[in-house]
């Protein structure tokens, strides 16, 4: 320590060290001093002959360079029924281009310490490269290659498709994401801002779709290349010209249908059986990106639910303890945007919390904002702004976004001073217009059987399933019982499935159904190398009701064993299983509703379910790992072709929810029904029929 101090003294100037006078030490947090003016370098602009606009933010402070190419190729241009094309194009651009494979492209940028990425939003597709400025030529070459000469290799497409499907399934198991999709669709109707990728859309995308999207939308006319950092305008122009000069054309500007006009408040309840909490989302459409009330609306949104001092944080959080982090946001695409506020509340408080949010929302547009509260909101918003534009990479992205949204060149420079000038009256006026009190769309995701009645007291409620299908109040009544099975489908047979982990074969599952004197016996042998080795035997009576389950094996090196006997009212026995906390063993003696299935038996009995495109079953399932009976729902979510090693089959896709994991089953439409694929949401594991 002393060494460091000595050196510091030697290296330093003389300490200014004026002694403290006690009066100078503040007893409360010192407030902000006047804003210093923004110090952004001027924007230099040039236009290439092919219509590509070039903006340079020249800064030689560090030998760094950031390139952001913004193309009008966002998700709004996805062909109907193939939602996900734009995202897939963006994802594949950097996975092989020019004469480089995906790995070579990655090595080329990594080996100079740089980065290269592509992503997509509603309106625009963005390609960004960051390098040391000595590598300017390489950065242009790589951005040029991924833009103009992407490989769209089939192998990479399949890898990305699997990832995108798994990500989407994960997203769809999150109630907040389900609510956001329902809200967007409700607000935008047929306008493409309301559309979202679907598993069906992603599976329907072919390489030709990517090629035609790329050919039509990745065009220089109307595109924007922003460069920030250590480069001069003549050199930037020269590099841009040699990289993009021969590129030509302008992307078509299709006419989108106008978003619907909402004239009254509507409520959609997304029924999620058994949900312990409700997600409340309230939204309305606002304005296009260049609207002059944006900053006043931003302040209004911050007052309502931005940060821990907001009105909703105080009322829903501190006062009622319903929700820790209510949030509000303004989406600002090029076209019409939306205002949204959301909270995650306990089921029993759903109607009260909704009422409180609507009340606070209305107050912002009707009551004057107290001066200290207004100043605090402006300070927080203006204060965080410069933190986000410290690097050339952040600066290039911010300039590109502002320009793509059609904002004036002075937008970033004037942002803080304009924000600080927003008045109380402007906030109230903006809130009245854009945080609408009378024509909201309210989406609640929760257990309809517990909250429907209370919500109807606040206004009419439209009921839908998590898949978006209409429901009636009668559907909320919990009806569970023995599933009506088609026993003719239970014929002796053996099936082999391959276990895929992250797309790679990692094991096998062989299942066998036999007839016995008592009824049926189902034997399942699962092997995942180094992970699971398990044999399950299930005895069913002549009606295919549960009688006995024996499971033995090893999981992660630990012995597991389950022995259960079922009668119509009770399950008894013992279990030693693996849990995330390690192995656990327990005795089982649980009362069960009639018709309860063991969780190991669901797969065995699926072929005997009475399948149709709109089938839905409510099941009682005994989960031996959890030692409890769970209410589960099995719903057919679609019909389509499924390709597995055993061949291509037309299948019902059905989702089982209510347990710890959502599972998708694919059962052939042709009889005898056969299970050909199982996928677990949020996990990179699937089972596919081998032969």
């Amino acid at each position, binding site marked *: 320590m002393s060494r460091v*101090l000595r050196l*510091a003294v030697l290296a330093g100037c003389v300490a200014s060290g004026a002694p403290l006078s006690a009066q100078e030490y503040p007893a409360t947090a010192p407030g902000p001093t006047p804003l210093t003016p923004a*110090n952004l370098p001027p924007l230099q602009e040039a236009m290439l002959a092919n219509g590509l606009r070039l903006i340079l933010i020249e800064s030689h402070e560090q*030998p760094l360079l950031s390139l952001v190419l913004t193309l009008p190729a966002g998700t709004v241009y996805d062909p109907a029924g193939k939602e996900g094309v734009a995202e897939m194009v963006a994802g594949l651009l950097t996975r092989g281009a020019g004469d480089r494979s995906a790995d070579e492209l990655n090595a080329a940028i990594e*080996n*100079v310490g740089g980065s290269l990425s592509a992503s997509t939003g509603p309106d625009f597709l963005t390609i960004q490269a960051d390098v040391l400025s000595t590598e300017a030529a390489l950065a242009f070459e790589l951005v040029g290659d991924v833009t103009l000469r992407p490989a769209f290799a089939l192998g990479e497409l399949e890898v990305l498709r699997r990832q995108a499907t798994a990500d989407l399934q994960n997203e769809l198991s999150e109630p907040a994401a389900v609510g956001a999709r329902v809200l967007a669709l409700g607000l935008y109707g047929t306008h493409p801002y309301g559309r979202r990728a679907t598993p069906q859309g992603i599976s329907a995308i072919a390489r030709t779709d990517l090629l035609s999207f790329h050919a039509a939308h990745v065009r220089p006319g109307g595109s924007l290349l922003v460069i920030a950092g250590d480069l001069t305008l003549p050199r930037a122009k020269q590099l841009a010209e040699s990289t993009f000069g021969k590129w030509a054309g302008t992307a078509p500007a299709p006419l989108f249908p106008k978003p619907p006009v909402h004239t009254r408040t509507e409520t959609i309840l997304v029924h999620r059986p058994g949900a312990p909490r409700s997600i409340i989302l309230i939204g309305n459409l606002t304005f296009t990106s260049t609207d002059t009330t944006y900053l006043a609306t931003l302040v209004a949104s911050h007052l309502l639910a931005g940060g821990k001092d907001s009105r909703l944080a105080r009322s829903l959080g501190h006062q009622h303890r319903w929700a820790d982090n209510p949030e509000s946001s303004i989406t600002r695409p090029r076209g019409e945007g939306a205002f949204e506020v959301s909270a995650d509340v306990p089921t029993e408080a759903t109607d009260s919390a909704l009422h409180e949010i609507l009340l606070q929302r209305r107050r912002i547009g009707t009551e004057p904002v107290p001066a200290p509260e207004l100043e605090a909101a402006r300070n927080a918003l203006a204060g965080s*702004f410069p933190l986000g534009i410290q690097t050339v990479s952040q600066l290039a992205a911010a300039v590109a976004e502002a320009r793509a949204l059609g904002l004036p060149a002075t937008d970033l420079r004037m942002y803080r001073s304009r924000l600080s000038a927003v008045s109380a009256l402007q906030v109230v006026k903006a809130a009245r217009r854009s945080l609408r009190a009378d024509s909201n769309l309210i989406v609640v995701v929760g257990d309809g059987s517990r909250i429907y009645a209370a919500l109807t007291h606040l206004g009419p409620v439209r009921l839908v399933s998590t898949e978006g299908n209409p429901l009636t109040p009668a559907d909320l009544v919990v009806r569970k019982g023995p599933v009506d099975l088609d026993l003719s489908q239970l014929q002796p047979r053996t099936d082999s499935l391959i276990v895929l982990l992250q797309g790679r074969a990692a094991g096998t599952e062989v299942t066998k159904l036999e007839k016995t004197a008592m009824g049926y016996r189902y034997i399942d042998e699962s092997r995942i190398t180094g992970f699971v080795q398990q044999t399950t035997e299930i005895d069913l009576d002549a009606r295919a009701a549960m009688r006995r389950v024996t499971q033995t094996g090893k999981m992660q090196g630990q012995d597991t064993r389950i022995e259960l006997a079922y009668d119509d009212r009770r399950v008894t026995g013992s279990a030693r299983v693996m849990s995330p906390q390690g192995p656990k063993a327990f005795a089982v003696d649980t009362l069960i509703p009639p018709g309860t299935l063991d969780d190991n038996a669901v797969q065995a009995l699926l072929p005997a379910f009475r399948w149709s495109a709109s089938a839905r079953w409510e099941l009682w399932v005994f989960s031996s790992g959890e030692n409890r009976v769970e209410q589960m729902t099995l719903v057919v979510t679609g019909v389509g072709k499924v390709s597995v090693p055993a061949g291509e089959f037309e299948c019902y896709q059905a989702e089982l929810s209510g347990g710890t994991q959502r599972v998708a089953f694919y059962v052939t439409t042709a009889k005898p029904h056969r299970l050909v694929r199982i996928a677990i949401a949020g996990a990179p594991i699937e089972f596919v029929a081998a032969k």
Partner: protein
Amino acid sequence: MRRLLTMALLSASFRVLPSKAQAPGPIAAQTYQLSNGLTVVLAEHHTAQVVAVDVWYDVGSRNERPGHTGMAHLFEHLMFQGSAHVGKGEHARLVERAGGEESGQTEDDITRFHETLPSNQLNLGLWLEADRMRSLAITDTTFGEQREAVKEERRLGLDNQAYTGAFLDGLYAVYDSATCFGYAHTIVGSMADLDLAGTAEAADFFRRYYAPSNARLVVVGDFDTVEAKRLIAAYFGDIPRGEVPAPIVCASDSAPGTRRKAVTDRLAALPAIARYYRIPGHDQADTPALELLSIILGQGQDSRLARRLGHEARVTVSAQSGIFTTRRGPQVFGVFAVASRGVTADSLDALLAAEIARAAGEGATEAELTRARNIHRASVVTDRQRAYDIAESLQHAATFHGSIEAVNTGLGRYESVTVEDLRRVAQRYLSAENVLVLTVLPGGTS
């Protein structure tokens, strides 16, 4: 296996990369000391309208004594629990209201606290740091709460991710706890030690280590130096100087020969290997060569381990190497790899050892050295943009290289490394006599 190795040979061609160096833009900073011993470093930087206030206390887990581990980290938590003029939990709230960011972090050698704020709130950042330095509130309640928070952090963090806990614990098993206790226990420490600790010990820790004479305040960004000096004098000037903490002793004995250790990890699905090599302190001459070698071996998808063992031979699902803790005392060069399905821990370790032996035998190519220099240089230059990153670079220079001047000269030490240096340090340090091999096997309840 034979087919995979053939593939590896076929695809081993490697392109020579451009090798152009350009010096990073210099950082202009000045340093001085208050009469109470607080070292101050100021660097005006007006690119963005932000300031970073960054305080490093010269205390870390290395200062802890047997039976009292985990205190430095627990203390970092206590620093956010209020002081004479700042209520409990109010620190974060005040920074959020200003639109800023804050953080705290404990390392082996130092503990850091930082705020990035809009530049018109420099006063807030300085005042928040001064108030907790002069008057931290330590109560039985906050102490008990933060002790539980630390346990929860361990449960949700390290104990909840496969391999992380085992690999991290291994880093602290390299040096002998009898001769080098400071580097022979983890930062998070022993929960049993924490259970025995109380507020009296915390108050003693504060008096001993959280004095201005044991701290350095670095301010970087859009401010006026005269005004900053005035505020610093007013806020920090009368905090009493502390005593000089006892020196830390770490006798890094000579290589004890290959040591092996095996643990189980209940969250692990596949076996894994960590190889830890003893290397000297950060300011020693061989550090740049060792750092570049760690990039060549195991950083990035085009590193040797990722390319040869991962992509080509497919014996690992992930592999990396690095010097994971920066210390004034002896450090550790670590190589970590998780086996692919069907590959045993022993065969993975043999392949890792062979790769490391190759670095000491054949050495590295000029192209690999250029790649490593490029990656290192780009990260140094990239860290000269954000005010907080610049502040951290200055703290690093002063603490680990003895002078803030090193911030502008440090890169030169890396530019002059040769392939011969790489081979020499590989031979000298990455030897079978100097390694601790940790095998992590799935299962158990570790």
